[in-house]
């Protein structure tokens, strides 16, 4: 009965186990087509918690958020950075297209303050994205943040150590990041819909640094220093940053 199949397909409350869940809240495009295709809602889930578990820092965990944050801040929404581990650096944020006037940085002394601040920021509609770096967070606290994100409809991006992958989570999306040959491997550990077993490989050339090699040439390089890396490999690798 083809009629029934199409009717079921159109029903908002029905989804097939083999498909991605349909999201009532459209996602914010990540800027990477390969990643968008695998995420319900076609991007970072709005009004839901996303956990990002980088293998270690410095592998591109902020870079993959750049296009989405640039889009949100371009719409006039605020991006709150709650208890970041280092100073977010304005020149890099500006280069990623993020409107600096829409950035709010919150420093906290205690984890409880960080969670409180994250919850406050999530509940307002003025905040488009909330990035938080909790040191320790329990399931109940995660649940609170998830509810706050649902109330405010904003992106809730939580950075947690890779060991957290073993713990259960109420988050809608959980992504582990690792370096792979020539790029960044994203493993979707949890998403709404069918699980994804293979990692998504984002190539190294995706950084917003296309004009880098020419810029590099324009810059004076002291050939006598120990940094005399071969020019060819430099431009290829630089795109990673």
């Amino acid at each position, binding site marked *: 009965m083809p009629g029934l199949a199409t009717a079921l397909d159109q029903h908002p409350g029905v989804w097939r186990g083999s498909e991605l869940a349909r999201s009532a809240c459209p996602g914010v495009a990540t800027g990477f087509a390969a990643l968008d295709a695998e995420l319900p809602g076609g991007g970072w889930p709005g009004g839901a918690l996303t956990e990002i578990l980088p293998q270690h*820092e410095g592998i591109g965990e902020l870079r993959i958020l750049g296009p989405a944050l640039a889009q949100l801040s371009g719409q006039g929404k*605020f991006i709150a950075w709650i208890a970041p581990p280092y*100073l977010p*650096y304005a020149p*890099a944020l500006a280069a990623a297209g993020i409107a600096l006037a829409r*950035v709010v940085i919150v420093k906290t002394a205690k984890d409880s303050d960080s969670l409180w601040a994250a919850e406050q920021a999530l509940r307002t509609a003025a905040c488009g994205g909330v990035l938080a770096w909790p040191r320790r967070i329990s399931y109940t606290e995660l649940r609170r943040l998830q509810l706050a994100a649902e109330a405010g409809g904003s992106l809730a991006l939580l950075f947690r150590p890779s060991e957290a992958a073993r713990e259960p989570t109420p988050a809608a999306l959980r992504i582990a990041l690792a370096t792979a040959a020539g790029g960044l491997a994203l493993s979707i550990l949890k998403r709404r819909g069918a699980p994804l077993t293979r990692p998504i490989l984002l190539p190294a050339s995706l950084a917003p640094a296309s004009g880098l090699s020419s810029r590099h040439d324009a810059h004076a390089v002291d050939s006598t220093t120990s940094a005399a890396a071969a020019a060819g490999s430099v431009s290829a690798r630089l795109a990673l940053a």
Partner: protein
Amino acid sequence: MPSPEPCAVAERQRLLVCDAKAAARGLRAGMPVSAALALAPGLRLRERETAAETEALLGIAAWAMQCTSSVALEFPDLVLLEVSGSLKLFGGLAQIEARLRQGLAAMGYSAHLAAAPTARAASWFARSGRHRLIADAALLENELRALPVSVLQCAEEEVLSSIGAGSIGDLLALPRAGLARRLGQPLLDALDQALGRLPDPRGAFVLPEKFGAAIELPAEATQTEALLFAAQRLLAQLEGFLAARAAGTRRLLLSLAHRAAPATRIELGLVAACREAAHFALLLRERLQQTALPEAVRAIALEVQAIEPLEHSNQSLFSDELQQEGNWPRLIERLRSRLGAAAVHGMALCADHRPERASARAEPGARQLALDFELRPFWLLERPQALEEMGSVPCHQGPLKLLAGPERIESGWWDGADIARDYFIARAANEALLWVYRERSPAGAWYLHGIFS
């Protein structure tokens, strides 16, 4: 402010008013203080303070200016509002009355409200405690007739009762000439003013430039909730004052008076001008919770020095103020009230080549310079971290591989914080991309300054 014990105010050894708890024990106004104490041994007795009453009446008048621009006072206990011009704006007499009643309750006052076509009649209805909202002049005379003569507050009350005039109606029935001869023209004028036959000019109340109000706590308090409860009354008054001026404020000064210690001063600073008492109370709650009080608080004073124009906002249908878009100042204020002003900030680019000065703190929402930099990392270390060197190769969890550089940055000789560094992009053994530099000095030490995330 509710207190655990019954409470009463006395004047010249007689009770003037008492609260519900005292009334339940059989205390009545007019009762001698000694009798009252016999009935309620735990009675908290306060002497009447006329100065405080006047202060309160002025506060109410300033607050009531939000409903009309013409307010008059009749000391010691009456505020008159000319509301005929405001009926359309607020949607009728009943709406204005509800608004006033709600606001007075929020400030902690109880009042008799009445409306009538003439100021004198309205004041009589209010004094008699009869709740009347009369808009039609034709109905006024009938309603007035039923009022007792005590509303006149004249010295000849006994004379009136002796001639059998117990109500205004009785007085109106008497011949005018005889009444004027026996009791004087002022009484007759008052009756005519009440009926609208004579003009009844009143001096208009002028709104003060600054706001200042104080409240004395019935019992010394240290707990946030108790202090907030009292402060909310002041904030409700402030809201009315600001609404009357079509203004808001960014700075509130609250001082908590103690018995011996100097007053604790709490200053609330806001990102955007605001007038809503609920928002002020929210910020104040966070601040009170963090303030260490040297002693219990006896009195609270609220002061606002500077106000700025703020347009009237539409009342929201849903109460959660943070649900509305575009109210980011509210979020910042709320975060700052708990975490401190320095903990919440925005950022801005600075025209400086020195990496640590290229990014600076700024107010969120501040205007930004458009500047172009070389490739820069997302994270900057607050303090460069010294790196070990192994055979002229810098190490950070293993030897680093330099991918690009050097970018020479030599700047800042003019302010003493000059730097001379060669920056490199390096890859660590674990594939992390780092921003490192080497001092351009004979020692040439290596430092980690940023992380490309």
